[in-house]
């Protein structure tokens, strides 16, 4: 019982220390813009549905950001996973794509911004659907192609790399076994390559989601962005509302960590066979 209490307490010590230092520093500095009090930020986080300086509420901005990330990320996963599987399995497809993809890999997602703006401007899902007014327009107009693209680039490479890695590390005996048991090429993909590389794919998806979430702020700083947690932070900064900046940063951290935890759970629960298998 005592050990359990201790193991639950240890992770809390560092954040508690940070809070104490924050309180002391805020009192010493005494300047809202440099470091607002902890109670102000806590108050903002405690009332997430309140409208903040006409930028919408904290929660609605977080939700808008989440929708963007999930869309860009889903597209990245839908492209990267099948591509990674065929690249991992067929040597010639790997050779065909690898050099080309490696050329783009070192380019930070942010460096794409000018080009992406030239391509997509401020066009959004609303542009495609042809809406120009109404509530639906407001929703769809939040999903800008430029943003999706930046998020896509961020998530694409980690997912691709770990999918290729996962497929290449499959024990060939498993593939041979499936062949001898009568599996068709399609069945080998669906029933051997995908499940066997799934643990590695999930790890890539976890890393990819983390990076996609990080790319979000830069994507939301793009012109035409009028919502989202990244927009909220940059806009609050121009208004010298440092408390909102910090509340926004904390929200980003909490959401990112929660998503990561979900993936870790899946890794742990579904793929215990990988840790022990051999």
């Amino acid at each position, binding site marked *: 019982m005592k050990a359990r209490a201790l193991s639950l307490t240890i992770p809390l010590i560092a954040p508690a220390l940070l809070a104490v230092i924050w309180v002391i520093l805020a009192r010493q500095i005494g300047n809202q813009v440099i470091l607002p009090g902890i109670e102000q930020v806590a108050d903002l986080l405690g009332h997430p549905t309140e409208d903040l300086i006409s930028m919408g509420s904290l929660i609605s901005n977080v939700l808008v950001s989440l929708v963007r990330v999930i869309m860009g990320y889903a597209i990245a996963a839908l492209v990267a996973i099948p591509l990674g599987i065929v690249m991992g399995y067929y040597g010639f497809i790997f050779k065909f794509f690898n050099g080309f993809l490696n050329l783009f890999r070192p380019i930070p997602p942010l460096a794409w911004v000018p080009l992406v703006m030239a391509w997509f401007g401020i066009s959004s899902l609303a542009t495609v659907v042809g809406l120009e007014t109404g509530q639906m327009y407001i929703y769809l107009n939040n999903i800008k192609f430029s943003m999706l693209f930046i998020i896509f680039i961020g998530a694409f490479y980690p997912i691709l790399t770990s999918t290729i890695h996962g497929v290449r590390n499959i024990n060939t*005996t498993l593939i041979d*076994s499936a062949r*001898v*048991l009568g599996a068709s090429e399609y069945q080998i993909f669906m029933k051997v390559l995908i*499940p066997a590389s799934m643990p590695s794919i999930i790890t890539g998806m976890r890393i990819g989601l983390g990076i996609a979430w990080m790319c979000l702020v830069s994507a939301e700083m793009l012109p035409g962005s009028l919502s989202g947690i990244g927009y909220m932070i940059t806009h609050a900064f121009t208004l010298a509302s440092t408390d909102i900046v910090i509340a926004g940063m904390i929200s980003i951290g909490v959401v990112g960590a929660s998503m990561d935890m979900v993936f870790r759970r899946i890794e742990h629960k579904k793929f215990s*066979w990988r840790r*022990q*298998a051999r």
Partner: protein
Amino acid sequence: MTQQNVIIEIEKLSKEYSTERGESFLAIDNINLKIQENSFTCIVGPSGCGKSTILRIAAGLEKATSGTVHYRSDPVTKPCGEIGLVFQEYSLFPWLSVIDNVAAGLDFAGVEKEKRDEEATRHLRMVNMLDFKDAYPHELSGGMRQRVAIARALANDPDVLLMDEPFGALDAHTRILLQQELLKVWELTRKTIVLVTHSVDEAIFLADKILIMASRPGRIRNSLEVNIERPRSRAIPEFGKMTDYILKELEYSM
């Protein structure tokens, strides 16, 4: 023994590999052999003599450089349901339970779930693994895994069962136990079995006929019938004499 049909016929089979430095290497050279239906054949040879290569070609997993393999009258060019292969280890799908592993071949063939499970259950019972049907491969010992691998190959109901050192990674005691069980399964199902091993003892204990291979390049050096009545005892003089003879043959072929 009555005159039986030839089920597998290998003619002038050779396989050449090329190394990364561009040299070529003859793994097996001009192999000719006939496997009788319902017989138990063991292939013994030093490691690297290409005995596994013969099985892989016969299973349709690899292409021969020259020569042919025929199953009944059809040439073997790709894996088919009639020829099963059991590997040395790591062949079970780690993400599937034991019963789903055994049913995998039937799943590939599109057999419906109920029928699959019924067949898998029957074969798991045959190898005494029914109690572990819901376990995962990583929870089993090496011997148990091989039992499941054998059940899986049999569940597909192949005509011929090829076994590539199936007990090679097991400890001596488990190995002897599984040899006895394999014989029981063989007597029950009367499959044609071709088993590759580097253990002379295993070959004499199991086989009707033993093929002795030599290496570099891999070729068949000699073959002999084992006319010891089953169940065979390792304690009788014939067993010892035959062991001695084969070991000498292998020594020459190194």
